[in-house]
């Protein structure tokens, strides 16, 4: 593994081997104190976003979502597993060269910290989208911090659960579930855009993916307990929950005279997934 000195961080003038350099960086980050996981820096370059609520846009006071590597639009659910430290470090290096001075600390952070940061973002987005609290202080936060990892996990989980519960044609069931959900999210977003609505493509994909969480829970319950009446009740409840979670985002994006036209396909998709859950046994 060759390491050219042209992309060495200019802290050490003398040439060193790879291991020495990394050791020095680790020592430097340890010495600089524990608060290096979420470095304070100027707000990240604006991600495409449109505030949903009518209240004026409140700049978020929490540390902005980390790293340029997460701002590249990740393709919908075919996203690769979390990038290894080396590729995120390349993102850090380009970011650090443009002036975000404390980014190199995340170069040396343990992989667990990176993963934990992504997981905490998924959990916070989930809480905001699926359990909307009308008294929360920042209603537009879920839209600003959209990500595609959450939707990817939920879609794959739902496909796997359905495939596991099926007794025959397991791979076909997974394929149909995955295709319906992934293509459905894209088509629903296009539908809103074509009706003249104002929504950002990836924001909408992210929201529709998070709204699948209740159906995931329902599918898991149906997998564990195999009684038709219970399945019907559970699916109806989780379906209503998913549609209720998706309603504010979809309805505020289009002209009020066309609200039903934008919402009907969402309900259709969730009903079809619900039907798959009931029917697979």
């Amino acid at each position, binding site marked *: 593994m060759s390491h050219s000195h042209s992309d060495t961080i200019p802290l050490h003038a003398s040439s060193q081997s790879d291991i020495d350099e990394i050791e020095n960086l680790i020592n430097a980050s340890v010495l600089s104190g524990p608060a290096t996981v979420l470095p304070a820096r100027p707000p990240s370059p604006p991600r495409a976003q449109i505030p949903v609520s009518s209240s004026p846009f409140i700049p978020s006071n929490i540390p902005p979502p980390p790293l340029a590597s997460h701002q590249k639009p990740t393709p919908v659910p075919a996203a690769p597993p979390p990038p290894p430290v080396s590729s995120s470090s390349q993102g850090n290096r380009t970011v650090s060269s443009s002036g975000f001075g404390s980014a190199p600390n995340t170069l040396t952070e343990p992989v667990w910290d990176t993963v934990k940061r992504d997981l905490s973002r998924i959990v916070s987005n989930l809480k905001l989208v699926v359990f909307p609290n009308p008294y929360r202080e920042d209603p537009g936060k879920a839209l600003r911090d959209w990500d595609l990892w959450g939707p990817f996990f939920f879609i794959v989980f739902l496909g796997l659960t359905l495939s596991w519960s099926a007794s*025959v044609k397991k791979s076909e069931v997974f394929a149909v579930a995955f295709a319906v959900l992934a293509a459905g999210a894209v088509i629903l977003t296009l539908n809103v*855009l*074509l009706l*003249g609505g104002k929504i950002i493509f990836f924001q909408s994909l992210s929201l529709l993916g998070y709204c699948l969480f209740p159906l995931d829970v329902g599918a898991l319950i149906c997998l564990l307990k195999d009684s038709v009446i219970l399945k019907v009740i559970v699916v109806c409840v989780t379906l209503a929950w998913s549609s209720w979670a998706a309603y504010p985002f979809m309805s505020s994006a289009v002209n009020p005279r066309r609200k039903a036209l934008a919402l009907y396909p969402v309900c259709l998709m969730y*009903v079809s997934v619900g039907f798959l859950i009931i029917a697979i046994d």
Partner: protein
Amino acid sequence: MQILPPNNGGGKGQGYPSLASSSETFEQQPTGNWRGVFSITSYTQYFNIDTDVVLNRLMGSLSPIDGSFFSKIVVNPDIYGPIWISTTLVFMLASLGNWATYLMEKHAGKGSSWTFDVNYVNVAAIAIYGYAIAVPLGFYFLLQYLGSNANLVQFWCMWGYSLFIFILSAFPLLIPVEILRWIIIVAAGAASACFVGSNLRSYVDGADATIVVIAAFFLQMALAVFIKVWFFS
């Protein structure tokens, strides 16, 4: 009046056509906003529709003899209706078809051997989407060849709305009595085929019109019979 795609590029050049502009310049409106195949704004002109207009057109599709459907859509043909009616029909056929097979087997006394057949989704999708796209396209080229002035988007719109009757008839088709299912599907197929035929006749007047109308009628009936035989037998 050709719509799709026009060769004379963007006439008005504005992004989102409003309803007012679409009604006063309806001759120009279809060609005004074409920005290329990959731009979404080129297609918004076909989705420029409100909830009440869609409901009005759905109700209009249920009347088989009227023949006035084209006058409803000539100003503002929409593709929203055909797309979502076809998609709903695919879902209905796949889900209710499975359910109907289950009920049939339970009725016949051997309900334990039924499993959910995912293949219904594939067959339904290919059949319905193929029919909804290819048949109007075929009739468009046929009528162009015969010399009359056809409008492809309006044809897609009309054939799409004609599938609405099958969505409504999918529910009564669950009843596991064979003769009743045949009666229902023949009635629904006849209503839908009359709708298509009478609208087509009011659109094309001429000597060859009868053959065209009869062909459309039979294609719609063939679709109805296929639905019954494949999904609800």
